[in-house]
């Protein structure tokens, strides 16, 4: 999808297009997606100036009604960064993404641990796998009231947690003050996933300071 302000849309198309057998198309938010897509990606960047709250206006775009129907049919829907914020604001995922504790835009490579390997986005990964992926955002501090958080956790809907390279999730490996080191969550069915890290920026080894392409593992899972 492309919203006014998306800026990781071309990266996502390129990273997906690099996977054999995938035809990735860019769709303007007023024009689609049509019913014949096998998966939908809401990219990172911004949307509608992120006025009111990041993703709050995009969540009312014509595309969201269509994405909601696709999601109800089981189509994988991946929201990255601003796309994650939009999915939350649209009510497709629970909770809220608040301003980082540091009040700073945090842009750096982090490590995330796979918490749920039964979603379409993580099926080629194993629980406990540590991925190197960059983050770049100002509002990525996941928050949910205690009761909701217990439910999200109990149902296995935490998909990724920030961690250190040994896979330990602690306050020192939490870049934004996000609740329980949460970096990404999915819906109950597992086919809608949002995450703050950018897999499309970590899909080509030449773009990674570690020569890794861990982001591609998420994208390959989604289309497998």
């Amino acid at each position, binding site marked *: 999808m492309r919203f006014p302000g998306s800026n990781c849309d071309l990266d996502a198309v390129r990273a997906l297009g690099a996977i054999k057998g995938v035809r990735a198309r860019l769709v303007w938010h007023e024009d689609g997606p049509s019913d014949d897509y096998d998966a939908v990606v809401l990219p990172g960047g911004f949307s509608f100036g992120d006025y009111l709250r990041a993703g709050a206006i995009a969540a009312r775009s014509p595309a969201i009604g269509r994405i909601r129907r696709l999601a109800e049919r089981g189509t994988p829907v991946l929201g990255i960064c601003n796309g994650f914020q939009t999915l939350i604001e649209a009510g497709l995922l629970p909770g809220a993404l*608040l301003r980082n*504790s540091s009040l700073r835009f945090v842009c750096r490579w982090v490590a995330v641990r796979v918490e749920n390997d039964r979603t379409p986005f993580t099926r080629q990964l194993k629980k406990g796998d540590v991925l190197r992926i960059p983050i770049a955002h100002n509002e990525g501090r996941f928050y949910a009231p205690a009761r909701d958080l217990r439910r999200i956790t109990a149902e296995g809907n935490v998909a990724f947690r920030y961690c250190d390279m040994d896979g330990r999730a602690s306050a020192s490996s939490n870049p934004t003050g996000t609740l329980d080191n949460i970096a990404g969550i999915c819906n109950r069915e597992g086919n809608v996933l949002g995450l703050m890290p950018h897999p499309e920026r970590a899909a080509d080894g030449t773009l990674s300071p570690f020569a890794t392409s861990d982001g591609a593992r998420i994208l390959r899972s989604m289309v497998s």
Partner: protein
Amino acid sequence: MLKINMSMERPIKIAAQNLRKIVPRLFEVSVVISNKAGANDPEGETIFRDLVAKSGFQQVKRIRSGKCLSVSVEARDGESARRLVTKMCDELRIYNPAAHSIRIEV
């Protein structure tokens, strides 16, 4: 002539009174969105800790930040204006009920 004038005057007066009742007026409604008590508010905490508390305002014990929308709304009365703005905030998710509380003042 005088008789006719008086009988004409009365119905016009009543109509004018009714007209005043149904013509909507413009109300200014403030919508204040802030983080719920359970959700940290680093902006408010920073303003408090690094500015206010360091500047001699010892009586100030806490600051919570938020966002304020000033909404001009046509309505019959203040209560209708409040109801309309409340409906707007709920339906368009002007706030995220998971993390925010909202205060509406007419």
